[in-house]
């Protein structure tokens, strides 16, 4: 049975070497649709995302993903949950010793009993979805920044996940390529109907793809909700962020 919210942060605190990053974060991410977590650099957006896949653990508070409390989840359940989550990392994080084909096929080879023909077929479909068909034999170093992002996106969707997490998907890309990445986020959302979480400080991208937004500032979500509601709320910190004056 599905829980009310797909992902929930309840009073989450997180510090790194006495440097507090999250200070009682409360955040709800509903099923389906695209939720964008906004915020200035260094406010803990990526750390928030890492809590969802269990790479980081909250010092205090609770992170619940599909009903699983991430502090209490057992190893086997965590592995099963991770198989249902696709992640696009900020730096793409393609395995540089593997070809694009091997990168996209990685999860399938590790976790499924699919034959090599079936894997090749799935990889082809995923690469085709991000317009990278024909690059199977290339190494990540041979791809441009935008192509690497798309290859990483193909890897993220290869296991047919229920959740896709995008960590700064447009960082380091030119406006055209950023726009293309935005197109793919929307395209994949409409085709796969997953629960997507986009972490970014790119306001044009957020406006374009989001159903809901949350603004993280000083370790807390200062405002969250559907995009039009948040924009209409006239929240002072949100306005400052949009104007680029939030330090």
């Amino acid at each position, binding site marked *: 049975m599905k829980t009310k919210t797909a992902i929930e942060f309840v009073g989450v605190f997180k510090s790194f070497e006495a440097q507090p990053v999250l200070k009682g974060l409360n955040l709800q991410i509903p099923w389906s649709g695209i939720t964008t977590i906004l915020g200035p650099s260094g406010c803990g957006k990526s750390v928030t995302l890492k809590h969802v896949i269990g790479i980081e653990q909250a010092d205090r508070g609770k992170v619940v993903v599909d009903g699983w409390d991430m502090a209490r989840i057992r190893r086997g359940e965590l592995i*099963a949950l*991770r*198989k249902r989550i696709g992640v696009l990392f900020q*730096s793409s*994080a*393609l*395995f540089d010793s593997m070809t694009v084909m091997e990168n996209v096929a990685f*999860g399938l080879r*590790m976790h499924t009993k699919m034959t090599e023909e079936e894997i090749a077929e799935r990889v082809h479909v995923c690469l085709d979805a991000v317009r990278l068909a024909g690059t199977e034999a290339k190494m990540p170093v041979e791809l441009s920044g935008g192509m690497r992002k798309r290859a990483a996106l193909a890897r993220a969707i290869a296991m047919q996940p229920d959740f896709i997490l995008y960590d700064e998907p447009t960082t380091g890309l030119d406006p055209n390529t950023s726009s293309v990445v935005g197109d793919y986020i929307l395209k994949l959302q409409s085709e796969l109907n997953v629960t997507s979480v986009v972490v970014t400080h790119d306001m044009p991208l957020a406006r374009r793809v989001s159903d809901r937004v949350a603004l993280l500032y000083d370790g807390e979500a200062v405002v969250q909700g559907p995009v039009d509601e948040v924009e209409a709320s006239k929240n002072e910190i949100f306005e400052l962020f949009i104007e680029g004056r939030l330090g």
Partner: protein
Amino acid sequence: MTRLLALLGGQLAAFFIQIFQMFRYFIQCMAEMWRVYLYRHQIIAQCYAIGVGSLPLVCLISAFSGMAVAIQTAYQMEAYVPDYMVGALIVRSVILVLSPILMGLVLAGRVGAGIASELGTMKVSEQVDALTSLAVDPVGYLMLPRVIAGLIMIPILVIYSFLVSIACGFVMSIIKMNITPTDLIKGMKLYFENYDVFVGLVKSAVYGGLLTFMGAYMGLCTQGGAQGVGRSATAAVVVSSALVLILDYFLTHALLY
């Protein structure tokens, strides 16, 4: 004074945290052993990288160390012992001490630093996080195959080192010291013990496991960017080399007395 004590206390606490974390990784690595079949391709690839990749270096170092041992042994002993003893001393010193320690130190540099910098780069470029997000345990996938490859390949490299060192020492004794091949072979046969080879191989297997584990541990704990990778590689070499020398004492004591 208070500040000095606080600094020392902080350093001591950091040291124990490091030891605890190392132990935790070791336990995690052992716990992944039962899934070793899943990582067979990585183990084969690592065996190739560690074993075949190190052969030229091992060959070069072993050849010169074997020749140096031969000259030194003849120089120190020629007035006191018969010629055939040079052969015996070359074999025993190479098998018991020289090859295992030398290979441990040299491979801590080549293999340990290589593993630390490779995994460190993976860590800082989020590839380790990507592995985790793909529901694959980085300790099992990255550390375990390297440790197993070290345990298998470093004793094999040490056997190779025995052969090259002894052969080069043999040739050097004949050319430079005018010792006859018959005398050398007589000495080698007379004092050769199978147990010495066993000791040399046990030592090298321990060093193999140690330096690959330290390399992988330092790599997976890398923090920061390029500087962090450099720090990890240096730490892997320094800690592995020190531990090889310390363990050599304890292993020699335990196995020979």
